[in-house]
C-alpha cells in the first residue's frame, strides 16, 4: 500500500479510502473517527448556524505531528497494527468530514477504540491546523483551549 498514512489534503475525505490504508491481513477490527462540519450547534443562547468552514495548516509540520501521534499510539497500545490520520484543508461544507482517524488491531479489544479516541484529542493539542467558521453575518478563526506547556505568549510560557 503506497498511500500515505498521515496526510493533509484539499480533496474530499473517504472513509473507504482510509479503511484501505490501515487494513491488514492480521487485523479484524478497525475504528474510524470522522469529524464532520456541524451546520447547527446547540449553545446556551440557542442554536448557532454554520455555513461552512475553511481549514488552514502549517505544512509539513502538521503531517509530521500526525505521524508523531501514530508513534505515541504504537508506544501506548503495542497491539495496534495500523494508524492513519487524514485532514482536509480549504473549504468544507456542512456534513462533510474534515478529519478521519483510523486505527486497526487484530481484535476489537486490542486498543483500537482507545487509541482512536486518544488520537483525536492529541490532534487538537499538537497538530497545527486551524478552522475559520463562516456564517451568515461573519467569520472567525476559532481557537482551541490553551495548552500551558506550549504557550510562549503569556508569562507561564517562560518555563520551558
Amino acid at each position, binding site marked *: 500500500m503506497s498511500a500515505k498514512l498521515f496526510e493533509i489534503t484539499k480533496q474530499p475525505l473517504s472513509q473507504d479510502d482510509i479503511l484501505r490504508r490501515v487494513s491488514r491481513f492480521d487485523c479484524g477490527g478497525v475504528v474510524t473517527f470522522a469529524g464532520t462540519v456541524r451546520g447547527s450547534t446547540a449553545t446556551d443562547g440557542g442554536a448557532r448556524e454554520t455555513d461552512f468552514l475553511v481549514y488552514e495548516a502549517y505544512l509539513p509540520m502538521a503531517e509530521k505531528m500526525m505521524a508523531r501521534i501514530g508513534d505515541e499510539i504504537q508506544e501506548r497500545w503495542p497491539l495496534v497494527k495500523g494508524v492513519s490520520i487524514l485532514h482536509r484543508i480549504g473549504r468544507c461544507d456542512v456534513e462533510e468530514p474534515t478529519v478521519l482517524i483510523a486505527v486497526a488491531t487484530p481484535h476489537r479489544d486490542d486498543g483500537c477504540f482507545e487509541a482512536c479516541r486518544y488520537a483525536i484529542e492529541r490532534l487538537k493539542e499538537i497538530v497545527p491546523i486551524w478552522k475559520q467558521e463562516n456564517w451568515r453575518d461573519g467569520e472567525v478563526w476559532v481557537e482551541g483551549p490553551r495548552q500551558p506547556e506550549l504557550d510562549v*505568549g503569556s508569562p507561564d510560557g517562560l518555563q520551558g
Partner: protein
Amino acid sequence: MNVRLILFAGLRQAAGFKRETVCLPEAATVGELLESRLPGFLDRTFYVAVNEEFAQRDTVLQDGDEVALLPPVSGGELFPRRRSLRL
C-alpha cells in the same frame, strides 16, 4: 542574522501579514524576536515552532531558522465559544 517569521489563522489576521524576514542580533531568543517584532502579542496565548518543532520562549535562534506562530489548534474545545476577532 535573518530568521523567517510565519503567522497562521487568527494571529496572521491580527498581525496583518503572513510571512516576514526579520533581522536579529546573533543568538537572539524566541522571546526577543517577539518583543522586537510583535510586542502587542505577548499577552495572547500562542505556541512557537522553530523549524517545525515546538520551541519555548528562551529557545535560541540561528540564522535561517523558520519561526512559526501557532494559535491553539482549532476544534480542540468540545463546546466552542464564538470569539469575535472580526465581525
